[in-house]
């Protein structure tokens, strides 16, 4: 009986893992397809679709744009989030609950609505759509996350260390930069890398708020109009690899450190 249920459990888990991995495996496998259709039968293996994407100027520009927007918007979101978290954790502000609610509010609203709102405002201000407007939108999306993560890790036990630094003559900015920030580094990094992965992957705001220079998801989106294409498989596999790289970096820099300190 026990034996049977173990077998059933293994079978069930195996089937679900198959379901979860099926699209990824098919995507990567047929990115090597020696033929123009990424569906069975697999005619043979070739790297020519990877050559095609790496020599595609538009695609590579979009990849660069995506990295640029992800890194800069995440850095801005982290700095703003850190400053605000410091203010709310270390000082008493009037209506602090309400103000904190305002900062995390965008998290509760669908990105479609954030994008539409920004688009309607940009339309009347006459500001042109560009990577900058996409970046502004991504900061709106990621700031609540960065604020929440960093604020949650600002416990009372760090206050005494900050006080000691002040007693020893450190100025406010020195306390913040040389004492508080290093103590909170794991959560700041976690916030940063999570933001990077979200921004890197974000479609709807990037689609609504960009025009000529676009990010990678938007460029891939326009490739989809030509239907199934091994080239799309190749760039999709590269995107997956880069996302996994972000995760591995996060796992090693963030979780290792928190693991050690606790």
């Amino acid at each position: 009986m026990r034996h049977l249920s173990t077998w059933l459990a293994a079978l069930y888990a195996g089937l679900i893992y198959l379901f979860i991995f099926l699209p990824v495996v098919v995507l990567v496998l047929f990115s090597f397809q020696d033929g123009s259709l990424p569906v069975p039968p697999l005619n043979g293996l070739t790297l020519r679709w990877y050559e095609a994407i790496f020599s595609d100027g538009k695609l590579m520009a979009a990849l660069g744009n995506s990295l640029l927007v992800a890194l800069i918007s995440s850095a801005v979101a982290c700095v703003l989030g850190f400053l605000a978290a410091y203010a709310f954790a270390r000082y008493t502000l009037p209506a602090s609950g309400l103000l904190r609610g305002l900062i995390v509010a965008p998290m509760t609203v669908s990105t479609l609505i954030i994008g539409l709102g920004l688009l309607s405002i940009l339309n009347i201000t006459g500001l042109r759509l560009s990577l900058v407007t996409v970046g502004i939108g991504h900061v709106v999306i990621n700031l609540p996350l960065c604020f929440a993560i960093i604020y949650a890790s600002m416990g009372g036990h760090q206050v005494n260390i900050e006080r000691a630094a002040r007693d020893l003559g450190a100025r406010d900015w020195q306390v913040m930069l040389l004492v508080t920030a290093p103590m909170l580094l794991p959560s700041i990094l976690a916030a940063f890398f999570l933001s990077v992965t979200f921004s890197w992957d974000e479609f709807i705001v990037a689609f609504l708020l960009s025009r000529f220079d676009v990010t990678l998801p938007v460029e891939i989106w326009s490739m989809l109009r030509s239907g199934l294409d091994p080239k799309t498989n190749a760039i999709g596999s590269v995107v997956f690899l880069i996302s996994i790289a972000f995760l591995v970096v996060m796992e090693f820099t963030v979780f290792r450190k928190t693991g050690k300190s606790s």
Partner: protein
Amino acid sequence: MAATALERAERRKAWAFALPALLWTGAFFLVPFAYMAAISFWTRQGREIVATWTLDNYIAFFVKAHFFKGLVVSLEITATVTIISILLAYPLAWIIAERVPKKWQRFALIMAILPFWTSYVVRSYSWLLVLSKGGVVNQALLWLGVIAEPLELSANRTGTVIGFVHFFVMLLTLTIYANLIQLSPNYRRAAADLGANAFQTFWFVVLPLTLPGIMVGAFLTFVLCIGDYITPQILGGNNELVLPQVIMLQLGRRADFPMAAALSLVLMVVVTLAYIACARWLKMERT
């Protein structure tokens, strides 16, 4: 009680730190959102937005079938996806928490959510590869002789639901596992001592205790699913549109910003109602 000079200086500093984030959220979220809410009560002439107050857009939502049907289709798909995802994810989370040896659990969980990190657009495209007429599933079934004709698995609701379920099974496995692993084994020991069999223990003890994990995951599923444009657009075909697709259609071909704004607010009201319905469990998570 007069504040001392020191207190005033401290308060100024606090505002200086908090202000950048507050201003950013105010200028790029609150103001745009308020403006969009206003637009939803305006109208348009040609491509121009005209600031005359009217309820026409909201009336159109209830009266015109293609708008209202968008919400109905969205709700049907979201409900189907949420239920199927919970039913598939719960046993997996349970197996990882109960049957996988402790030192392998983290690995099993990371593997279960790895494709979570594939790009959003690419993930739907990958399912198109799998589900299309010449795709892997149809080819395999044809080859095995299970079917004689390729099944219609994409460009319809089936495609959308499969694409969504894939994503949310991973999400729900995570939230339910997190809940299961926190349960003290004492609950189960107590139930067994009191004479409950395995099924009774699960149904009357474990399941109710993991309800918060299920509800948190279900709420996230609901919110992310009903607001998504990509998955139905790539996998769903054009026969029935979900609400976000209807919204995007107003922007593109018809340039009807007021109608798009009104539909977005309808979407937001639906999400808010879902939050109120789940609030009890979402709060429990925090304590």
